[in-house]
């Protein structure tokens, strides 16, 4: 099915716009918790297979196959935890917050089904500390689900019995806790420092037990997959990515917003059809395709589809370079284009100071580096300071090359991907908008003199 045939299909936003969609009664009136009943009649392994068949891929950023991840839980695991990552804080991303506010019961049902499939008895939702309003809404929804007996009560219909407890856990302000192993440390009452992998969480995660961490949007797709079948879900996407995709569009477009769209819709259609075109008179200069940690696309690259594999491999996207003509090597000769990431699409027009924009991104990563690994702790600070001095006309000779060199020194040399999250966009902006950086350098006092 091409993306145009899947127009209008809503899975995770199906209850948006319905009055009191966050209430259990409304959710049930609209068919809520039917998928759970259907799931309990199946064997847990059959559910994992169904999710595998659906080609559902993680919506938090990495796009890893959800069914595959679930199957990594060892059969002999004594205790399994499911953790929902609701620590949304990737700049430009605002989907999970709306999903939590409008349809918390869809998440709870998705988690209940996933928990049954994974044989998890106690699941956690780790919600970002700043989301105080959403935490209240989700907690109220959990309380309703307990009262109605979906949570905290034995379900005798399940093969071998099933009872689930669900706890909402609030973070306290740290972007790094969105990284799954940092999240687990934070949930254990520690500083949010990422752990070395392996062991992967599926083998040894929360409290040293088998743990699966899934994003909010990912889990909210599960009830419909169970109800309508993995084939139905797989068919509407692209060959290797099933379902729809939520994108959050911000920046210089007429109608910014959170949209559930067919997987594979091109950026061009998104900007000019869905979002009504550019907001001002200035033309499109470029966009960030999946949150601030992804290399940007320039205006000539917007025909590519919004889909996990296409953004990593489409030949219409230029390779990210270390310097003109020299592609960045991700290891083993693999080249970097960009990634679909979190679905946070930031559109900017020709009036934008791209160096100032990059400087703001680097300031963010310098602030959020957890301090564990030297290349990231020091390197992100250097990138932030050098970008800033370029942006304000205080650049020094060699600064543009220096930014690239530092980025190469960070990428691949840290425990978690926060290092790449700073290095990749830095190299990406230098590749696509090098002239802007060179112009700032030329205009700098020290260089002009």
């Amino acid at each position, binding site marked *: 099915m091409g993306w145009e045939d899947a127009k209008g299909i809503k899975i995770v936003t199906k209850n948006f716009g319905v009055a009191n969609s966050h209430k259990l009664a409304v959710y049930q009136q609209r068919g809520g918790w039917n998928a759970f009943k259907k799931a309990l009649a199946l064997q847990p392994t059959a559910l994992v297979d169904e999710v595998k068949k659906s080609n559902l891929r993680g919506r938090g950023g990495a796009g890893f196959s959800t069914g595959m991840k679930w199957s990594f839980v060892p059969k002999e695991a004594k205790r399994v935890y499911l953790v929902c990552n609701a620590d949304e804080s990737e700049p430009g*991303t605002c989907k999970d917050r709306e999903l939590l506010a409008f349809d918390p019961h869809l998440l709870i049902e998705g988690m209940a089904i996933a928990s049954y499939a994974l044989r998890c008895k106690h699941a956690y939702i780790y919600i970002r500390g700043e989301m105080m309003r959403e935490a209240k809404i989700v907690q109220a929804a959990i309380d309703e689900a307990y009262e109605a007996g979906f949570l905290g009560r034995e379900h005798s219909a399940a093969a071998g019995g099933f009872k689930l407890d669900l706890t909402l856990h609030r973070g306290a302000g*740290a972007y790094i806790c969105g990284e799954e192993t940092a999240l687990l440390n934070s949930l254990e*009452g520690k*500083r949010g420092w990422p752990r070395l992998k392996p062991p992967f969480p599926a083998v040894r995660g929360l409290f040293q037990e088998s743990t699966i961490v899934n994003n909010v949007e990912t889990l909210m797709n599960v009830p419909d997959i169970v109800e309508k079948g993995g084939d139905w879900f797989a068919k509407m996407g692209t060959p290797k990515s099933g379902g729809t995709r939520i994108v959050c569009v911000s920046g210089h477009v007429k109608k*910014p917003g959170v949209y559930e769209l067919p997987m594979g819709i091109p950026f061009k259609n998104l900007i000019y059809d869905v979002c009504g075109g550019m907001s001002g008179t200035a033309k499109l200069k470029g966009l960030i395709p999946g949150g601030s940690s992804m290399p940007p696309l320039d205006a000539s690259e917007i025909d590519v589809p919004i889909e996990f594999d296409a953004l990593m491999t489409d030949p219409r996207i230029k390779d990210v370079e270390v310097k003109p003509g020299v592609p960045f090597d991700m290891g083993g000769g693999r080249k970097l284009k960009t990634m679909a990431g979190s679905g946070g699409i930031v559109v900017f027009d020709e009036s934008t100071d791209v160096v100032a924009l990059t400087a*703001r991104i680097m300031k963010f990563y310098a602030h959020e580096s957890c301090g564990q690994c030297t290349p990231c702790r020091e390197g992100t600070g250097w990138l932030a300071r050098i970008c800033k001095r370029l942006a304000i006309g205080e650049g020094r000779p060699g600064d543009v090359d220096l930014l690239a060199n530092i980025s190469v020194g960070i990428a691949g040399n840290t425990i978690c991907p926060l290092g790449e999250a700073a290095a990749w966009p830095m190299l990406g902006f230098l590749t696509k908008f090098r002239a802007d950086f060179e112009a700032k350098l030329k205009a700098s006092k020290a260089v002009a003199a």
Partner: protein
Amino acid sequence: MALEFSVQAKQQIDRLLTRYPNKQAALLPVLHVAQDEFGHLPDEALDLVARTLELPPSHVYGVITFYTMFHRARTGTNHLMVCTNISCQLKGGDAILEHCEKKLNIKAGETTADGAFTLIEEECLAACANAPMMICGTDYFLDLTPAKVDVILEDLRKKHAERKRQKA
């Protein structure tokens, strides 16, 4: 004088402890309870949390100082969190923060003399489609303009004065 939790806070903590397999895992939620109770987390509060959860005070200190939402010093009644990250930057978020600084006569990171406001320059608050934006507690203020900010500040100031009167 050593701090103690109120009866309600103690009950809340007892409930929290049933949700985790060990006491340490309840540290973040208990710190939220403590901050709600005492307004901020001075050494006495830190010691109380450490005693309650049977953790070394050094561990609690390490955790408090890692997360931006825990405050060691007294802060204002209203935590005004203004986003200046990219989506807001493109739509004038920096000007909104500057406007707040001017109106409140403090810099980001500071608290007003009357204790009504603490102004915080925040990273992305996940309302990018409605940039520029800020939050205060559970309230979101979206698609901001300086004029809208004026009305919001005035309203929050009135509510602060009202609460103070009720307390007195």
